[in-house]
């Protein structure tokens, strides 16, 4: 099944696709906008809505189809003066091409940030933690903390207690809840695998 104009969520593109929101133009019948944002970082660029009479210099299409029971997108891009569509392997590359090669802002005052989706909020939390690790380690050493949209919303020495409160507050969504320590945490599963007895099946 091949469809257009699908808001797609897949394992392979889950981070990027979660925040991809687009509308395809219908032969200029209505304006459209596209918001591009690498997960967990400031928006690479945000394209505001613009009149369809001012083309961005390229066209792109996103097709979705089932690939091994997973709805997966394929990206294609073509310059207006080019003859052929070119397949783009990743969302990141599509975004980079769109922004660096074809984007000319027409209404910069309309540019606005993309609101983070639940998955991107998790990634946002990871980035916040990485950027503020020194301060957070000083304040929360030995504790689990919950980071939601770049805010520390709770902390506790018990993960179970922390998680219960956090999920009551924000719902059961991906929330970044790391254990804060100044040590590099490399977890080791010490026990070797048992030897399967011959002739037995599990």
């Amino acid at each position: 099944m091949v469809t257009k104009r699908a808001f797609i969520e897949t394992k392979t593109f889950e981070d990027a696709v979660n925040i991809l929101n687009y509308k395809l133009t219908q032969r200029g019948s209505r304006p459209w906008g596209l918001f591009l944002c690498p997960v967990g970082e400031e928006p690479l660029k945000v394209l505001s809505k613009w009149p369809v009479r001012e083309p961005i210099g390229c066209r792109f299409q996103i097709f979705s189809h089932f690939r091994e029971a997973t709805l997966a997108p394929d990206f294609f891009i073509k310059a207006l003066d080019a003859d052929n569509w070119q397949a783009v392997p990743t969302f990141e590359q599509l975004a980079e091409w769109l922004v660096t090669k074809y984007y000319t802002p027409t209404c910069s005052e309309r540019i606005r940030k993309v609101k983070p989706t639940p998955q991107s909020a998790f990634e946002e939390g990871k980035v916040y933690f990485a950027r503020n690790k020194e301060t957070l380690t000083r304040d929360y050493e030995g504790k689990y903390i919950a980071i939601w949209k770049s805010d520390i919303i709770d902390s506790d020495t018990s993960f179970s207690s922390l998680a219960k409160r956090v999920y009551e507050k924000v719902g059961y969504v991906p929330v970044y809840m790391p254990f804060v320590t100044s040590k590099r945490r490399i977890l080791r599963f010490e026990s070797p695998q048992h030897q399967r007895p011959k002739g037995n099946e599990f």
Partner: protein
Amino acid sequence: MNHRNTNGLKEMNSDIEFNYNDQIFSPAAPAVLVELRSVNFPSSREPVKMIALVDSGAFMSLIPRAVIEGLHLQQVDEVEVGDYDAEEDEDFKVLPVYSVHLTFPSVEPILARVAPKKPRSHATIGRDVINEWLLTLNGPELKGVISVLDAKPTRS
């Protein structure tokens, strides 16, 4: 009835006695039957029930990847992990960590952090959970007891 033993620890009356498992593990190993649920459905009448190896050598708890996907668990962290013989950087890999509603018989359920594992035969309870217990292992009799203390140990 609660009372204090000679170590000054307050004891709960909700001890979990269990037998070692020799069906899955050879030699027999301490293992308990646990129930796994999505945090969204803590009262689900159809939890995933499975044997969980009580492994004090494991830093954290593990459950089969298929269970994580089936329960649609949400991610809470990432950790760098390695097997018992991991030494070089390339021996370690980054795994996602999820939260799961974990129930042991006769014990108040907890939300636990779990990482995925491939084998589906059993889960693993690591030190992140074990260190909340008073765990007694009787090797000769292939039995064990888990005592969940309702307070931190007191020292006179």
